[in-house]
């Protein structure tokens, strides 16, 4: 008896419609005069906080301020040059051990102006759950890594990856836009559903 795989593929092949052309991605997509400002505006509209920060010292000040303000005790940082943190992710095998993290300071690779999304991956973060389980999240993105829209974002991913494409090997990546949120109770917006209660994005020059 043919397998389900064979039967599904056969059923599909028996009924394929006539060939339709695949369009290109080229287009006059919206670009912004000041992508950074657009990013910051949208980020604030989706409940996040963003800021352009020049240099490590002011960035460190910003983050220490935030630590105080959030009364964060367990801090997980993969950017020790900015702030050391006291939870060492490299020493952790089980993602469940990050359950008590109050604040995670993590890298973002790319910012998208149109929707305030930041592309985050596991390149420097051994436990991806840190982005989602931590009570509060700070993302640090180089200020020049900003694109106008999602088309440019995927172009950037391709350019950055080279020949094999961005997913030649097992890898995950998330576009994060603002903190976790829900409106499932009577359409009332509540920030901090399951993931981060707050999201701060620092664009560093």
């Amino acid at each position: 008896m043919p397998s389900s795989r064979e039967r599904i593929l056969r059923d599909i092949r028996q009924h394929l419609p006539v060939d339709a052309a695949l369009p290109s991605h080229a287009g006059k997509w919206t670009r912004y005069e000041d992508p950074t400002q657009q990013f910051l505006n949208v980020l604030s509209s989706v409940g996040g906080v963003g800021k352009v920060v020049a240099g490590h010292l002011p960035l460190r000040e910003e983050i220490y301020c935030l630590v105080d303000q959030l009364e964060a005790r367990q801090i997980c940082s993969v950017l020790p040059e900015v702030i050391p943190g006291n939870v060492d992710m490299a020493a952790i095998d089980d993602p469940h051990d990050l359950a008590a993290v109050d604040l995670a300071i993590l890298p973002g690779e790319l910012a998208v102006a149109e929707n305030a999304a930041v592309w985050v991956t596991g390149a420097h973060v051994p436990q991806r759950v840190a982005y989602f389980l931590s009570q509060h999240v700070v993302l640090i993105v180089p200020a020049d890594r900003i694109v106008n829209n999602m088309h440019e974002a995927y172009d950037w991913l391709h350019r950055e990856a080279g020949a094999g494409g961005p997913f030649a090997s097992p890898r995950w990546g998330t576009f994060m836009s603002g903190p976790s949120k829900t409106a499932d109770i009577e359409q009332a917006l509540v920030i901090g559903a399951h993931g981060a209660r707050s999201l701060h994005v620092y664009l560093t020059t």
Partner: protein
Amino acid sequence: MDHAIAAADFVADDAHAHWHDQALWFIRAKRDKCVHGLPEWEELRDRAAAIKQHTISHLADYLEQFERNATRLGAVVHWARDAAEHNAIVHGLLRERGVRRIVKSKSMLTEECGLNPYLESHGVEVVDTDLGEWIVQLRHEHPSHIVLPAIHIKKEEVGELFHRELGTDKGATDPTYLTEAARQRLREKFLAAEAGITGVNFAVAETGGFVVCTNEGNSDLGTSLPKIHIASMGIEKLVPRLSDLGVFLRLLARSATGQPITAYSTHYHGPRPGCELHIVLVDNGRTNLLASEEFRNSLRCIRCGACLNTCPVYRRSGGHSYGVTIAGPIGSIINPARDAEKHHSLPFACSLCGSCTDVCPVKIDLHSQLLAWRKHIVARKLMKSSKRRLMWFAGAVLKRPRAYAAAGRVARTALRIAPRWLVYNRFNPWGRQRELPTPPKQSFRDWYSRNETRNE
């Protein structure tokens, strides 16, 4: 199953029905605001429709390419022809690994397959982690909307439910307070889960990966903690290229809730180190849709829910009155394709206003398809006999100009002199909530024939 009958309870609570209508219209308005801020919106819709159309015309090749690439990345791909096979595959995976506790993020496909009751009957604890879906799970209900599962429930009802289930303060209705209580309880569930099940928003043939979009971050928690991730996807979820996501992620959240993008759009490619990733490709009637030239466009659907939010019938009758997993205009097309006899009334739960077609991000000609379904249902004699007779009678009158004119004369006079009980009774369901207009003394035809001669 008859939509109009099933909707009667919902409609009977007039205040609630209006509240529901307004809640959905609010989302439609948010969508409009977001969409009008993007000059290339129509161009994006054209591209999305074309990409989907192309994918469907090469679906078998793309599925094979997806399988090859996903396997290369270390995922295991399974194929299921129907709901029963899907459920058996998922349960088999859990049983072999001794998994008893799973967290699930929103997946209309697993709803469609009835996965929850199946797993529960086999002793597996299933927790739906999307807040809205968890609320309906605790109420032993089904989602009434594909994106907003608990849109039909008032915060007072959620407060009552959480008081009972979670011990929140009696009478508490503040959404922030209630959401926090859910966060605490579900965090325990995430940390205790042995496997995570998700749906799939888009799968990419050229990379063998897939994308899951949420606002709450529930699918990310559910797939970053346990060692096993099972993703269930309909075979129509494919796009050919990674960059196609640029088009679809721009359309999805704007259409669904009027957001520029969901808070989390996670791209999964292969399992985490030392973990497992299983992808179940499900047909469950999709190849039947593909076989139908008239209705195959509905396979483009990206499940954004925009057609539900804008539909005047959906807004005023509620999702449960459709008696199916996917309600609203799109559901009224794909469900009759599965079982026309059972769902014969759905294509008639429609005013043919065409608003669904206007908002659809992948340009499905929804209202035309709904009209086409009506023809099929009439041709297959699936319509109620009372309605069929009435339609036959109407047809007989409407195609004979003299009979039509005579019937008009009779009606104009009769409606004016007939006592109320003769007009408003059980044979006139139209008049149950409405008043008939006062009939004019003269028809337009009479007026025209008089005035035409006078003007000459």
